[in-house]
């Protein structure tokens, strides 16, 4: 069964808990660098958690295109639908 982007987004929000140290309310346009103040290494660690949760490969190559949590949800959706 395919998942919707919203369902994927909700799961990503749960996975982000350990990385959301300021406990901000995560929306689709929440940014990693500015809003969550995550450095590139933390973003990579977060992607690893996402890879294991969805059992997918998220190539590091797409990292420069991922600025917001919503973009990650869409990227995961694309990978799941491949």
């Amino acid at each position, binding site marked *: 069964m395919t998942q919707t982007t919203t369902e994927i987004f909700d799961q990503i929000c749960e996975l982000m808990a350990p990385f959301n140290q300021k406990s901000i309310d995560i929306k689709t346009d929440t940014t990693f660098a500015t809003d969550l103040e995550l450095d590139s*290494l933390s973003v*990579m*660690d977060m992607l*690893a958690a996402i*890879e294991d949760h969805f059992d*997918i*490969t998220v*190539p*590091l*190559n797409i990292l420069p295109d991922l600025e917001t949590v919503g973009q990650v949800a869409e990227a995961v959706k694309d990978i799941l639908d491949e």
Partner: protein
Amino acid sequence: MTVDLFEKFDSTLDEYNKLPEGELNPFTVSMDSVISPTEAIINGRKTILAGTNNYMGMTYNAECLQAAEDALKNFGTGTTGSRVLNGTYNGHKKLEETLKDFYEAKHAIVFSTGYQANLGVIATIAGPKDYVVIDADSHASIYDGCAMGNATVVRFAHNDPENLEKRLARIRKKDPDAGILVVIEGVYSMLGDQAPIKELATAAKNHNAYVLVDEAHSIGVFGKTGRGVAQEQGVENLVDFTVGTFSKSVGTVGGYCVSNHPKFEALRLVCRPYVFTASLPPSVVASANKALELIKDSNLRVKLLENSMKLNKGLANAGFNMGTTGESPIAAIIIDDKDTAVAYWQNMMLEGVYVNLAVPPATPNGLNLMRCSLSAAHSFEQIDYMLERFIKVGKDLGVLS
């Protein structure tokens, strides 16, 4: 309105500008003169060098100096050319023969730096349809090799064979025929921990992946004849490509890759960081060649690891929060916050001990470290002096109670 291309560096500069100018700035150290592999004059002060990765003390070895001087006189100051044009001298070919002999390998290619060796090999052999799977704590040169190439890049949790296995299985499920290169380091430079090469390489082999091991911090230091961690662990048969540097144990500059792959020499034609740069100066090549010969039969690694264990044990006994165990040539204490780490570094300099201030993103897990790299050339007296100063500064700053 034109965008200032440098605006993106504002936050970095703001952070940097908080540091004092002059001798207390950890990023502008300049050696007035160098006395030996373990001592220099910095800011007019005699200083013990405890963070220069000069593991074997080869920079002032008499035979290496003589070989470099002879080459300088006979072949000049530089080659002014690429290896594939006018930049290959007999010395470069001899050095590659020495490397083949050192590693008992069929092929060896010398690069102008260790950074370029990783950059060139990784970016070239993993193409658009291939995968590179790297340890999360990899050196910048490995990340940059991935960024320069066209392969799909996947990262696995540091030194975790199960995590690697899981990622390789996912790749294979999707792409049964893709070429895969797994990249690991023999010793990780910040905390000195060794890769479990057998377990990681076995996971790779189970999925028909190639294995590249970067022995930059382990050549000379580990293994019966100094080849590195793969030799130490008895698993060289599982390694397809060994990368390393001449800028640490070998005491000069340059990089290399050795392999038994039958088509390995093709890299000389297609590897851009090999082709489009000038080759190493003859004097550098000559001293690297001599140092490799010396390292092979040397017992300096025993003295080096003795030195490291002495400093590590001394620091641990004094009550420091240690990042290292003494089983590698690295000794690192963990400092809670960056400001204290900077102050610690400054105080150590004033006490005449040069160590490395290592802070994120160069360090794993966001750690702030006072990092030392020991040398076989350090005397026990010098290590006692380092220890004494570490303890004094620790008490002054309240790091030690």
